[in-house]
């Protein structure tokens, strides 16, 4: 058997084998969607579109689900997940917006402005920032940033003003967004840098020759030409922000509270929240309870579809770049 394997293969067989292995990957992806969808089905069928609405707090529903038996009655599937969706959208949108500004300017710095030696330092450092495990970010958040915000930024009067609805410990939107920004900025920077570097430098030089100062030339020509790729970078990075689970579960305060501006901007920033991904981590123990398990799979299905939509969007946004022959 081994000797037969060691002999050179006929070309056709090799091609078929390699092709079959590649097809296995496609089967895996389809299998992933199907498996998650099958497990998610009960909760969607019992709740309908109301699943996305607001109503009973998700925590209360989850606790009831955990208490149900192996064969839960249809009423046990009751879930209104709007606060979780709201938390997910809020953290994603805010942190992507922050990271967008930071990474756009940092990319301009890296590609166009930084002296050679400084750039040689910056690129590996930003790569390092991208590869720090999320649990390390979470630890930093929960042991350093959360106590700092809770003890020094949140005042006693602010705590007292909302004491009957939420407890301001420092864990919440602010810390989550700050760490998430640091986590997704390197991804955006990598993609944005590549896009900026692929714009021919003669375009920028032409603009300078026409009398623009160098920075204006970068903003008006290089950044403008690479704009679709920069937006696509933001879209792809938001997929990462959407899926971040462990870090958010550690620093977000773990309460499906919808941060709102009723009590002013500061309270809004300090209020706790819960996202889709962190819900799965927080309630993982109860996944064997059918109703709760199904709800968690439903959340996973939405995240899967969300990520899928985002990557299609990223692809579509980059299409116009083809006409410039700029890779992005």
């Amino acid at each position: 058997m081994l000797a037969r394997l060691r002999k050179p293969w006929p070309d056709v067989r090799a091609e078929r084998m390699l092709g079959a292995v590649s097809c296995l990957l496609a089967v895996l992806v389809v299998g992933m969607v199907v498996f998650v969808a099958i497990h998610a089905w009960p909760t969607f069928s019992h709740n309908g579109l109301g699943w996305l609405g607001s109503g009973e707090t998700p925590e209360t529903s989850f606790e009831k689900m955990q208490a149900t038996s192996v064969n839960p009655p249809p009423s046990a599937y009751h879930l209104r997940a709007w606060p979780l969706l709201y938390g997910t959208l809020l953290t994603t949108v805010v942190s992507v917006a922050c990271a967008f500004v930071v990474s756009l300017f940092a990319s301009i710095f890296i590609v166009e402005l930084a002296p050679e030696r400084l750039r040689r330092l910056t690129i590996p450092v930003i790569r390092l920032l991208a590869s720090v495990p999320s649990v390390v970010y979470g630890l930093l958040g929960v042991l350093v940033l959360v106590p700092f915000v809770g003890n020094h930024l949140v005042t006693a009067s602010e705590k007292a003003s909302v004491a009957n609805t939420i407890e301001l410990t420092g864990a919440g939107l602010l810390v989550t967004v700050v760490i998430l920004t640091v986590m997704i900025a390197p991804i955006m920077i990598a993609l944005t840098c590549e896009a900026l570097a692929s714009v021919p430098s003669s375009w920028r030089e032409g603009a300078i020759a026409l009398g623009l100062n160098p920075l204006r030339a970068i903003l008006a020509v290089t950044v403008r030409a690479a704009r679709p790729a920069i937006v696509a970078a933001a879209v792809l990075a938001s997929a990462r922000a959407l899926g971040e689970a462990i870090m958010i579960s550690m620093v977000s305060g773990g309460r499906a509270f919808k941060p709102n501006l009723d009590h002013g901007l500061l309270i809004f920033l300090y209020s706790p929240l819960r996202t889709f991904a962190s819900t799965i981590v927080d309630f993982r123990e109860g996944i064997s309870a059918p109703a709760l398990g199904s709800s968690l799979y439903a959340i996973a299905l939405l995240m899967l579809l969300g990520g899928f939509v985002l990557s299609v969007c990223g692809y579509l946004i980059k299409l116009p770049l083809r006409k410039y022959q700029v890779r992005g």
Partner: protein
Amino acid sequence: MSTLVPFEFDEPRVMQTGRGRRSSPMTWRWRDRFALVLAWSAGIVLVLVAGAIVAYFAFRGVQYLRPSLIFSRPQISASQAGSGGFLDPLLGTMVLTAVGIVLALPLAVASAVWMSEYGRPRWLARVIESCIEIVAGTPDIVIALFGLAVFQLSFMGPFSFKASGGGIYGRSFLAAGAMMSLIALPPIFAATRDGLQAVPGHMREAAFALGKTRITTIRRVLLPSVRSNMATGVTLGISRIIGDTAIVVLLLGESLRLESQGAVPGLGLLRGTGSTLTSYVFGNSPAGEGAAPQKAYAAAFVLLVFVLGLNLLVERIGRHQERATGLSVATGAV
């Protein structure tokens, strides 16, 4: 997706305005000056943030990391002094990485070779490429739930830990490793494919002219020449696996020690449950049950040292390759 995109610079693009007069920022309009300051500060602040994170964990690591922590097994204990170190999580990380890479490497290399050397029918190649991008973009927590669903199927029983009642628990090193291979696959695939595409066509033509078949060319000529690309990909894959928490927390069973299933030594370990450095940090942080910040800091420091080491390794492989062949290795940034 980000992992599939190389992050490299072909030529130095320092801002130059020719030999003559350099435009002085002092003569610019205020908003251009503002943008200039913003760009410099964004770049420098990010470097400082990274430096601060590393410096903080280095400080905490020196403060709390003792050799006894690395070499003693964790124990369940009410007091911090009695709860032992993190030998088992460290071994767990290594076992899980090995399982993940062993599963991911053949899959990724085979599909990269097929994609770049055969790739027909064209539509199928495009479908598979999109599938790998989908895998790269799928959050790890979703992959973990998928793994749980698969390994709790009744015929998957032999691969995972048995719960006390005889039910299929669906959690084991094999289950977690299989899902980890999905995480490690995209970087290995991307690095290998980019390497193969960068191999000049005349090398293939020379091999064909000598009468080699396609597959022999791949095995004897192409794969050896992209070895360092594969090494880069594997290193990136390893750094993803050791940094991942969600899959470990859901699929490895969160038992503090390595718990074997069955009597066969190696297989029993793979079918058993355990923990890794990441889940140890998670468990010992205030977010978990342990609430032992000192131990979490020490383990996080070890984790960070691994990640730093792997990053340096990627850089070195890239530079080595550049010197040897003049081709630059495309390294995924993330």
